[in-house]
Every structure is written in C-alpha cells, then in structure tokens.
C-alpha cells in the first residue's frame, strides 16, 4: 500500500505527465520529501522558503483541507488519497 497523490496539470511536468503518483511518509511534510526525491522540484512548488505550505496551493488528505488539520504536520497513512490543487480566488 502507498499514499496516492493527485497532481495538478501544471505540476505533471515533474511527474512525467502522470496524473497520480504514489508516495509514503507519516506526515504531509515527509510525504512531500519522499515525492521530491522521486520527482525533483515538486517540493519547491508546494513549500515556501520559510517551510510553510504555499498559500496559493490547496492540499487535501482524503476530503479534508490540510489548512484545518495541521498543514504540513497533518498525519497521513497508507491508503490515504492526497490531492493538490491551485487555490482559486481574487478580488478587485
């Protein structure tokens, strides 16, 4: 078993065009490190220099937005489904 991660269209340049990739780790942070070791450059797109999740990116573990569950410290386990999406917002 692994954690299935859904990749948004523009970041598929890092995954050889794949819509989903598998990863492992106990936390979202560890999962992103694992993904980055196989798909170089992915971490830079998701995590800021300050080590925080980029504010224009939404990450979900199953149906939960990780903003409400501890952000990068969110616990993950085999069989979970993680989805990465662009946040869509703006204003005048």
């Amino acid at each position, binding site marked *: 078993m692994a954690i299935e991660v859904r990749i948004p269209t523009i970041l598929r340049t890092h995954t050889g065009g794949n819509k989903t990739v598998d990863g492992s780790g106990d936390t979202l942070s560890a999962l992103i490190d694992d993904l980055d070791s196989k798909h170089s450059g992915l971490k830079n*797109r998701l995590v800021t220099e300050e080590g925080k999740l980029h504010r224009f990116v939404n990450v979900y573990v199953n*149906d939960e937005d990780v903003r409400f569950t501890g952000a990068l410290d969110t616990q993950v386990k085999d069989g979970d489904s993680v*989805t*990465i999406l662009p946040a869509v917002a*703006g*204003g005048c």
Partner: protein
Amino acid sequence: MLRIDRATYDAIVAHAREDHPDEACGVVAGPEGTDRPERVVPMLNAARSPTFYEFDTADLLKLYRDLDDRDEWAVVVYHSHTATEAYPSRTDIGYASGPAADPRTHYVLVSTRHHGGQTGLAGDDVEFRSYRIVDGEVSEEEVEIVETHLFGHSPTTVVYD
C-alpha cells in the same frame, strides 16, 4: 485568443449580472489539453463580497474531482468585478501566478460596474475581457464569440450545483 460560443458567453454574463453587486465566479470546462471552453460551471463565491471572490475549499475539491472524472480541465476561470474595470487586480494576478495554477488557463473578467442587472436597453453590455497570466505578467487576448448555431449541435450545458 479565446474562442467562445455565444451561449457560454451569455451564461457567464448572466451569472455576473445575477450576483451583482457581489462578485460572481466559475469555470468553463473543456476536454483536458484542449482550448475548447464547453461547459459552464458557476461556482459559489464563498466570500460573498463585492470586492473579493474565492471558491470554497470543499467545492474546489469537488469541482476538480468532477473535471478529472470527465477528463476535463478548467479552460476558463471567470469572475466579475462589480465596481471596477474588467482587468486583473493584484490579488487576481497573485493567485493566477501560484505554483499550482496552470498558465494555459484563460482568465475571463467581466465588469458589471455600468450595468448590474439586465436593462433591456440598447448598449446594455457588460465588459467582457480575457487574459493570460503567467508569473505575474498579464497579457490581454482577443475574444472571438462564435454564434452557437455554427456548431451544429449544442455543446454547452449549464450545471448549477
């Protein structure tokens, strides 16, 4: 250039008028990898604000799962400005330049500042403009409206959640 059929154009304008004075927002989905905006999906503005819009986080997940299941992507992301011109704001540019935002997206801006609701009078048009936004750079593009009957079938479905 954004090529869009009349029914899709009208649906976006109608949504913007309906939600005036709050900003309206949504996407037009099309087959993934293509430049064909075919299916209007109006979204709820979770901010319910005249100066800000955002897709609710749970709605966003539902939308993208649905697009994925249909092998579609968001060809157009649209929203309205209700008191200012139809030009991307700094906030719009910030989000559109985010690391997971696809630069192939067409950003449509509609302004209802002169005509909120439908007046039925001549010249009652809202501003409708389209942009590409890449790494903080905005470039306006031409909008070509294709009269729907030219398609020979009806490609547009409006789905209200």
